């Protein structure tokens, strides 16, 4: 099987799975779950195979498929792997079976529709990452809202309607401005050389004026920043997370938020490098504010899910910080941090779901001393907490360390030239690790330590299935913490290209 074919299969497996699901009777929930599991495991296998086949150090796209879709506009069905999306695709495929396995017992209503939605989400998320054509990207980007909307709205908590509408309308507002920018770009590319094109590769070569770039970047950035989310555009996130079912939270935190940072990485900054350089102080500031603001908010929450939701705001601040360092360390760190956050936050949400399933409460005040009641649960929770804090040997450390090192590395030369704000921001970001420990350990202490109590007596510890899920996650967390080099090698070329694209603009500015 050729790799390009496998890539297409990877993308469309969930669609095939979804159609097969439709054929199953609603009452056979076990069959539905089994089928979904098989399909997503197959997808994971494909993703892993493609990851292994992916060649490090080769510039450009790999395993490319490019077919005309709307020829009159130059829109293509164009998908490929590159260093930027490779890990995210792997992460998405990795979390798929975990989500399904995690929902074995918690989803009993509309099982078929639920798994259909999981498939739909997998499809759209993978599509977003794989797309190499702006139009296609937008289609997937926006389509992703639909299954997520339903997932929160149907299987969510009490205020699910509010949360899901807020999620949809908030993100759609960003998207609509991005759409405006895309339409503008489409028409610009048309008038530039006559052959219409939406291919990223062509768009990178545009060379627009700084003013236009700034406006377009503002539109793109708004959309991406909402999805990341960066303060002050984050308020949809806690509501969505709190109300979403566990699976929704896992997908949301695990992959969906990365679409925002991926957007910046793949599109926002490299498409408009001059504007990106102009906006760097702003984005850097917002990134650091996100780190601190999220950490502060996470500290004063009593809803476990909200704590983790706000921690996502904080953690993705690191990703954003890494992206605007424009050096290899920071960018590579940001990529790793994305994956790490996906695993860690996803895992934590799963664990919250497991305890919620048992006790039907997410209020910290209801819990204490779970380490006594649920030892295995507590071990996993502790490991994931530590990974969230960024303790060395976990994936969180790899990401944060490289990001912060990169930030400092790019800030110091500027400091020596008399520009001190990057250094101040980088230092503040480093202080963020203290704040991170503050709220995560508060969570761990309140939940795991202290006098043993829980709303429900006679709690079962983790089942084998749950241990399996968490075990796999934790292994991945440690793998990235201990041996990140393989990942780094595969992404390095793309990160370098990203960096060069933006630095070329800076050099051009110097010449001017």
């Amino acid at each position, binding site marked *: 099987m050729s790799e390009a074919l496998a890539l297409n299969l990877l993308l469309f497996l969930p669609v095939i799975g979804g159609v097969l699901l439709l054929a199953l009777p609603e009452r056979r929930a076990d069959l539905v779950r089994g089928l979904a599991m098989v399909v997503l495991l197959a997808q994971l296998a494909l993703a892993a195979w493609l990851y292994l086949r992916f060649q490090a150090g080769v510039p450009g796209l790999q395993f490319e498929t490019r077919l005309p879709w*709307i020829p009159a506009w130059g829109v293509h069905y164009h998908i490929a792997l590159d260093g930027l999306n490779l890990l995210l695709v792997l992460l998405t495929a990795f979390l798929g079976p975990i989500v399904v396995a995690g929902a074995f017992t918690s989803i009993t209503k509309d099982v078929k529709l639920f798994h259909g939605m999981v498939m739909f989400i997998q499809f759209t998320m993978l599509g977003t990452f794989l797309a190499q054509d702006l139009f296609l990207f937008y289609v997937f980007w926006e389509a992703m809202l639909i299954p997520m909307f339903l997932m929160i709205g149907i299987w969510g908590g009490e205020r699910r309607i509010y949360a899901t509408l807020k999620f949809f309308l908030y993100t759609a507002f960003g998207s609509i401005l991005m759409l405006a920018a895309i339409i503008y770009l489409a028409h610009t590319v048309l008038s530039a050389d006559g052959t219409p094109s939406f291919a990223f590769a062509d768009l990178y070569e545009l060379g627009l004026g700084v003013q236009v770039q700034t406006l377009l970047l503002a539109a793109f950035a708004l959309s991406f920043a909402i999805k990341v989310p960066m303060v002050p555009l984050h308020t949809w996130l806690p509501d969505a997370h709190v109300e979403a079912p566990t699976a929704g939270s896992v997908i949301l935190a695990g992959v969906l938020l990365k679409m925002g940072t991926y957007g910046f990485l793949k599109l926002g900054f490299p498409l408009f490098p001059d504007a990106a350089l102009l906006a760097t102080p702003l984005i850097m500031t917002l990134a650091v504010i996100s780190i601190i603001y999220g950490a502060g908010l996470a500290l004063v929450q009593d809803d476990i899910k909200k704590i983790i939701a706000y921690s996502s705001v904080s953690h993705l601040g690191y990703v954003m910080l890494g992206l605007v360092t424009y050096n290899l360390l920071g960018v590579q760190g940001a990529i790793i941090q994305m994956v790490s956050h996906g695993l860690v936050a996803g895992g934590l949400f799963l664990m919250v779901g497991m305890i919620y399933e048992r006790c039907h409460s997410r209020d910290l005040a209801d819990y204490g001393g779970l380490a006594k009641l649920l030892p295995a649960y507590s071990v996993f929770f502790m490991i994931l907490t530590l990974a969230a804090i960024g303790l060395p040997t976990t994936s969180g450390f790899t990401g944060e360390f490289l990001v912060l090192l990169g930030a400092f590395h790019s800030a110091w030369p500027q400091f020596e030239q008399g520009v001190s704000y990057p250094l101040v921001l980088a230092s503040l970001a480093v202080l963020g690790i203290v704040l991170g420990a503050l709220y995560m350990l508060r969570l761990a202490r309140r939940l795991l330590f202290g006098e043993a109590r829980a709303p429900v007596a006679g709690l079962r510890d983790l089942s084998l299935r749950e241990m399996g899920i968490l075990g796999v996650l934790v292994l991945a967390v440690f793998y990235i913490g201990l041996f990140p080099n393989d990942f780094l090698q595969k992404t390095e070329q793309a990160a370098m290209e990203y960096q060069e694209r933006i630095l070329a603009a800076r050099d051009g500015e110097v010449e001017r």
Partner: protein
Amino acid sequence: MTPEGLFVAALPEHLLLLGILAILVIDLVSDRPRDPFLPALVTVLAAAGAAFWLHRIGYVGAPFPGQFSVGSDALAAKAVLFVLTVPVLFLARAERLDSRVAMLLLASLYGAGLMLSADSLLMLFFGLELLSLPLYALVVLAFRRPESAEAAMKYLVLGGVGTAVLLMGISLTLGSTGGLSVEDFRAALAADDFLARGAVVLVVAAFMLKAAVVPFHAWAPDAYEGASVPVTAYMATIVKGAVILALVRLFGDAGAGPELLAVLVALPLLSMVWGNLAAMRQQGFRRLIAYSSIAHAGYLFFALLGAPEGRFEAVTFYVIVYGLTNMLAFACLPKGEDWLRDRLDSLKGLYHRDPRAAILIAVAMLSLAGIPPFPGFVAKFLIFRTVMEAGLVTVAVVGLVASYLGIYLYLRVIQYMFMSPEPARVHTQPATGFAATAALLTLAAVLLVGVFPGVVLGWL
């Protein structure tokens, strides 16, 4: 003018006429009421096929020079509108299709055909009236409900005002340019005198009234609510499409002057905001679609802002998509008492009673909202690209933001179907038979347009 030219150029219209006559004759000779579905369907399909065929062979002809001519665009538009009527027939059959309804429908369609081939304002006016007059009757024909007469009355009076306004505009055109041909109108568009300006704005206003653009929209919600489902579907899609396609034909390769441009920007924008906002609170499905159609009229009129060569493609594609998705939604509405099935409340928990219908309505709603991957997105993209290509970047951005306002109202329908608990007593049943067939037909078309928009765009 050769006879065969006369015959061929207006072949679709002739077929429609033939169909009307056939139904009339059957009705006359038969001693009991006959089901006119099959003849009507055959007629519409034949007319659409003829239009499509003529379009494919690249037929160009002008049997009545200066009055009636057909070209590629006109034939494509006719084919689209006629094909879109097919689900209307199915819907009508699912409710109540007697020969009167069938004949009125075909007659109205005949008017649309004339309008789309009109080369003079005279013909245009004639076509428009032929399109509208049967509609008043069609609205009232759902007279199992008292509101239908009220709806028809409002539609009739305001439609009459529209007719008068259009005539005044035509008259002023005549006074300003000395002729009634479309070229004369285009000259008036370019002219800068008192009469010409009044002429163009009155004509445009009349078209806006027929297409329900704010502030000439007031009849639409009431008329839609009062009419039966198939008639509403017909009004919301085919009539609206025909009117705007006719206007596009009328404008031809001319552009609006700055003053008219301002009107063409402001009123559609107002329409989008108004329609989208007002629809948020609606409790009736048809009323919701009415307001949504007011907003969509705004998008459609935006196409006129673009460069002449792109307008037709944009509008036609939009009409196809918008028409199909509306039909899809209407076709999936559950069966039951008319006023009950119209209430949004009866959609609550629909997913559990009829998952297929719920999913299809959701698809339709999302497409109307312009969310990809559904074809409504491509249509929206096309319209706003047209606007942006004309250099009106700000207008396009504002328009897109206005279209954002509309997302909520469609989401609300989905929310009702999927996320609300089922009402204690359900008075409606899943759609079956003809409605379900219509749903399947439109779904296939929606999927085709959604997955391969390039094919459709290439054909246009």
